C-alpha cells in the first residue's frame, strides 16, 4: 500500500487549511498535522519581542532568540526485512544573552509568552551569576540588520515522498547487494532532516530558514565462516544538502551490487605490504581527510584554546597566518556556506551573518580562519565569516565548520592520468576508520576498497590498508589533482564538537588527488 503525507492528513482527521498560519512563510504551511497543531497560535515575531525586550530591560548588551522546529525520518532495513520506520519532531526556543561580557543561555520546549519571559530571565540570571567572576569580557563585531526568509535548493521534499516508495527502494537495494554469491548481510537506511529555523536579535534581524538534508546509506558484509573472517563494504556516496532527488539521481542499486562483489573480493584480497606508497585518493576517501586535517585546524576557537578541554587546540597558531606553506602550491581550500548541495550551506548563520565563501588555504599557503562574531572581535577582525551554529533550539550556538572543499585542477586530469604517474602505489575509495590528534598533526585513515597500482596501472585488490601521516607533510606531498570532472561532494551528517557535545552537518568536495610516499600500515599485522 502506498501512502503519502496527504493520505496521512486525511487519516488523522486534520484539515490543513483550517489552521491559522498567518505568522509563518508560505512554505511552512506544508507541514504535517502534528506540526500544524503546534504551530497554530505561535506568533514568533511577538514572542521574539517579548524575549528581546525582557533581556534589554535586564541590562544585556546583546540578545537573540531562536524558535526552531526539527523534523526527522529514519527507515532502516536489513536483507529482506524492515527494521525500523520512525518519524520524530521537536519544537522549542532558546534565548542567548550577553551580559557584562558574559554569555548566558536558557531554553524550553514550552513556547508560550509566559515561558519566553521566564526563560529569558533565566538566561540573564545565568549570565549574571557567571559575570561576577568573569575575567575576560566577551564582545561581538557588528552585523547588518536583516529581515528575510531563505530556503535551501532541494527539488523534492523527502517528507512528501511515500514511506512505501522508500521501503521498496531500500529492499530492492538490498536485493542488488545480495546478488553476489558469498554476501552474507546487508544493512541499508535513509534518514532525512528538516530544520525550520527562526532567528531574531537585538540587532533588529528577523530571519526564517527552511533546510532539508538527506542521508541514504548501506553496508554489505561477507563472512567466511570456515576461518572466522569477515569484511564489509559501505556506501561511497555520503549525505547531501539535497532533497529526495539525491536518492533518485545516484545509482545506488548499481553501487550496492558492486559493493557486494567487492565485499566478497576483500575476503580473498592480497595483504598490503606496509611502508611508503604513493596514494591516489578518490573523493569518497579524501573528503574525510580534508574534514579532519584542514577543516578542524582552521577553526579559530581551537587556535585560541577555547576547545582545549575537548576537541583540542590547533597546530595552526595565529602567528602562522600567511607564513605556513600548509599544502603544495597546486592546492586551494575554500570555506563556503553557499555551496550547492552543501550540508553546511545556509542563508544566514545563527547570529545573523550571511553565508560566505573565502579561502582558508590559497596556493598552499594558510591564509584565513573560520570565525564567529565573538571570535572575530577577539582577534581584531571587523566582520565574522558566519560560522555560528546551534544544533537545536536547546543548544547554545557556537563556532562550527562551514563546507570546506579542495578546488579541482584547472586542466582535465582524470583518475587514469593520476594512476599513470605511479609506479608503486595504492588507489583508495570510500571512508573507513579515522583518527587524528588533538592539535591535528598526526592522523590515520582507512578506506573501503583498496587497489594496488603497479607501473601506472590499477592492479589487484588489497586489504587491511590504513595510511598514517602528519598533516602538513601529507598535503605538501600532493603533486596531482583531478579536473572538475572528477570533483565529488562527501560529507558528515553528524560532526561532533563542543561541550555539551553538538552535532553539525558539513560537506567537503574535492577532485581525485595523488600523494607521494605516504606511510601505509597493514592493520592485520599486530
Amino acid at each position, binding site marked *: *500500500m502506498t501512502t503519502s503525507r496527504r493520505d496521512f492528513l486525511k487519516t*488523522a482527521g486534520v484539515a490543513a487549511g483550517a489552521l491559522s498560519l498567518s505568522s509563518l512563510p508560505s512554505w511552512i504551511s506544508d507541514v504535517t*498535522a502534528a506540526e500544524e*497543531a503546534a504551530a497554530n497560535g505561535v506568533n514568533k515575531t511577538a514572542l521574539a519581542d517579548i524575549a528581546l525586550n525582557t533581556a534589554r530591560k535586564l541590562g544585556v548588551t546583546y540578545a537573540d532568540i531562536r524558535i526552531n522546529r526539527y523534523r526527522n525520518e529514519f527507515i532502516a532495513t536489513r536483507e529482506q*526485512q*524492515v*527494521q*525500523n*520506520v*520512525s*518519524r520524530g*519532531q*521537536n519544537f*522549542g526556543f*532558546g534565548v*542567548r544573552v550577553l551580559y557584562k561580557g*558574559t554569555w*548566558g*543561555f*536558557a*531554553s*524550553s520546549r514550552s513556547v508560550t509568552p509566559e515561558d519566553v519571559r521566564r526563560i529569558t530571565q533565566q538566561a540573564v540570571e*545565568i*549570565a549574571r551569576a*557567571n559575570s*561576577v*567572576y*568573569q575575567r575576560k569580557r*566577551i564582545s561581538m563585531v557588528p552585523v547588518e540588520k536583516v529581515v528575510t526568509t531563505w530556503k535551501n535548493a532541494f527539488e523534492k521534499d523527502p517528507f512528501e515522498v511515500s*514511506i512505501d516508495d522508500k*521501503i521498496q527502494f531500500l*529492499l530492492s537495494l538490498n536485493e542488488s547487494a545480495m546478488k553476489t554469491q558469498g554476501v552474507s548481510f546487508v544493512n541499508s537506511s535513509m534518514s532525512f532532516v528538516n530544520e525550520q529555523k527562526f532567528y531574531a536579535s537585538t540587532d533588529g534581524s528577523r530571519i526564517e530558514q527552511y533546510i532539508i538534508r538527506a542521508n541514504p546509506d548501506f553496508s554489505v558484509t561477507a563472512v567466511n565462516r570456515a*576461518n*572466522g573472517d*569477515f569484511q564489509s563494504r559501505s556506501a561511497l556516496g555520503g549525505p547531501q544538502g539535497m532533497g529526495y532527488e539525491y536518492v533518485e539521481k545516484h545509482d545506488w542499486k548499481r553501487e550496492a551490487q558492486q559493493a557486494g562483489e567487492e565485499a566478497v573480493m576483500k575476503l580473498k584480497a592480497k595483504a598490503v605490504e606496509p611502508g611508503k606508497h604513493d596514494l591516489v585518493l578518490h573523493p569518497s576517501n579524501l573528503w574525510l581527510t580534508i574534514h579532519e586535517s584542514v577543516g578542524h585546524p582552521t577553526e579559530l576557537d581551537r587556535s*585560541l*584554546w*577555547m576547545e*582545549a*578541554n575537548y576537541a*583540542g587546540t590547533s*597546530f595552526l597558531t595565529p602567528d602562522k597566518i600567511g607564513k605556513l606553506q600548509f599544502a603544495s602550491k597546486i592546492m586551494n581550500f575554500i570555506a563556503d556556506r553557499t555551496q550547492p548541495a552543501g550540508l553546511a550551506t545556509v542563508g544566514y548563520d545563527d547570529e545573523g551573518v550571511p553565508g560566505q565563501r573565502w579561502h582558508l588555504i590559497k596556493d598552499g599557503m594558510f591564509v584565513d580562519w573560520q570565525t564567529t562574531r565573538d571570535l572575530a572581535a577577539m582577534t581584531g577582525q571587523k566582520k565574522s565569516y558566519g560560522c555560528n551554529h546551534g544544533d537545536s533550539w*536547546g*543548544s547554545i550556538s557556537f563556532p562550527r565548520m562551514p563546507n570546506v572543499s579542495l578546488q579541482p585542477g584547472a586542466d582535465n586530469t582524470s583518475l587514469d592520468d593520476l594512476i599513470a604517474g605511479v609506479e608503486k602505489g595504492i588507489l583508495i575509495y570510500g571512508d573507513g*576508520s579515522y*583518527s587524528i*590528534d*588533538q*592539535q591535528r*598533526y*598526526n592522523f*590515520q585513515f*582507512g578506506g573501503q576498497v583498496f587497489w594496488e597500482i603497479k607501473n601506472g596501472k590499477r592492479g589487484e585488490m588489497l586489504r*587491511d590498508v*590504513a595510511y598514517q601521516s*602528519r598533516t602538513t607533510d601529507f598535503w605538501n606531498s600532493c603533486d596531482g589533482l583531478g579536473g572538475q570532472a572528477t570533483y565529488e561532494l562527501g560529507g558528515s551528517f553528524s560532526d561532533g564538537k563542543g*561541550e*555539551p557535545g553538538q552535532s553539525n552537518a558539513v560537506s567537503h568536495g574535492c577532485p581525485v588527488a595523488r600523494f607521494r610516499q605516504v606511510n601505509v*600500515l597493514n*592493520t592485520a599485522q599486530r
Partner: protein
Amino acid sequence: MLLTEKEARTICEKMLSYVKADDASVSVNSENYGHLRFASNAFTTSGARENVTVGVTVWIDKKRGSASTNEIDDESLKTTVALAEQLARISPVDREYMPTLGKQTYKPVDGYAEATSNISATSRAKTINDVITSCEKAKVIGAGFHQARGSASGSATKNGNFIYEQSSLVSLSMTARTPDGTSSGYFLRNHFDVAKLDTTRVAGEAIRKALDARNPRVLEPGVYPAILEPQAVADLLGFFAFSFDARSAEEGRSPFSAPGGKTKLGEKIFDERINIYSDPWHPELPGSQSAQAGLPAQKIYFVRNGVLENLTYSRFWAKQKGKEPTAGPVNSILESSQAPVSVEDMIKSMDRGLLLGRFWYIRGVDPRVALQTGLTRDGIWYIENGKIQYPVKNFRFNQSSMQLLAPGNVDMIGKSERVGSSEGQGGNAALLPVLKVKEFHFSSQSEAV
C-alpha cells in the same frame, strides 16, 4: 520541573488510550540540564535546557511504526500516536516483532540526588571560580566543563507494564595547559550525587599532571609495557560490557565469533583475574532498573575469571535460538578477582615502561579483534627501575582490546573506581581499575600537546 511518577503515568496512560493498534509501547522522558564551560581561565558558554519528549511504537498485524515529539498537549499526543499507526500500516511485517511485556516487578535502584538536579547557577559559578583561581595560582591555563542533569522517565506497554525512574549526573572535567603550550594535564570525574563530586581533586590532578608533564622527551614508537590509569581504561573500554552481542557473534562478525560458525562462549578469552559484569544495584554505579524492552535488570557476568560466560541475547534472537533474553547490561564494571594493586606498587614493580593517563580519538580499525587506533593525550611518563623518570611526547597506538586483556598480557590490576570516558565528556560512567600490561602497541609519534 521533572515529571512525578503520577504525571509520567498519566501521560503514558493517555497515549495508550489513543492507541488502536494491536500492541504498543510508549515512553515519556523529562529532563533538566545545565552546563558551564570555561577556557583560557575565563567563563565562556553557560546554559540551561528543560525538555519533555514522548515516543510511541505500535504494531498492527505485526507491522511496526514509531513516532516521537516534545509537544505533550492532548492533540499532539493523539496525532503522534496516529502517525505511528499510519507508519505501521504501510510498513512490511516486522519479522522480529516480540509482544510487549506485561506487568513486571522491579527492584528499585538509588541513582538520583535531588541536589544534583537543582544545582543553582550561583553555586556553580562559585565552584568554577575556585577551579579557575587554582589554575591562576599554579600559573596554568585552565579549560573545563561542568554539567548537571536530572531526568525522570516513564514507559508503559499495551500489555500492562509500567516503570518510572529518576536519575541524575554531575561531572567536571578540566584541562590545564602551561602558558607556553608545551604541557597539558586532564582529569574528569562524575557522580550521580553532587555531594560526592570532588571538584578540588579534579582541578588539582589536572594541574599536577600539566606541571609534571613539562619538558617531554621523544621516545621511539614500538611495543612497551604500560600502566593504564582508570581514565585511560575508560577511554578504551568504558563501554566494553555493551559489546557482548550474541547475534553478531553467531552471525560470524564479532571478536567473539569463532571459526566454523561458533562463538567463543566458555573459552578463556582474558586473563583469569578479569571479571566483566553489569550490576544495576552497585552503590557507586547504579544502573537502570529496566533492561531491554523493560525486562527487570539483573546482575550479569559476561566474563568471569577470564572465561566468556554470557553473550547478550535480544528478546528476538533469544527466541530464535531457544535461549533466555538477557536482562542487561545496564552498566559496565571491570574488576579483579584478586586483591587490588596500587598504582604506586605497579610503578615500583616496572623495569621499563610507560604510565598512560588518557587516550583520545579512539576509532575501530579491525572489528575481528576489536583493534582500535587512537592517541595518548595530556600526560605520558617513562618508567625505569621502578621509578617515573621523565615525561614523553605522545604516541598513536593501534591496539586490540582482545589482546590487551588476553591471558599472558595482564600483569597487575588495581582497585576499580567510577570514571567516565573523556570522549563521552563524563556523560557516562563505568567502574574500572588501573591496569598494568606487558605489551601496548604504539605505531607512531604525535607532536600534539
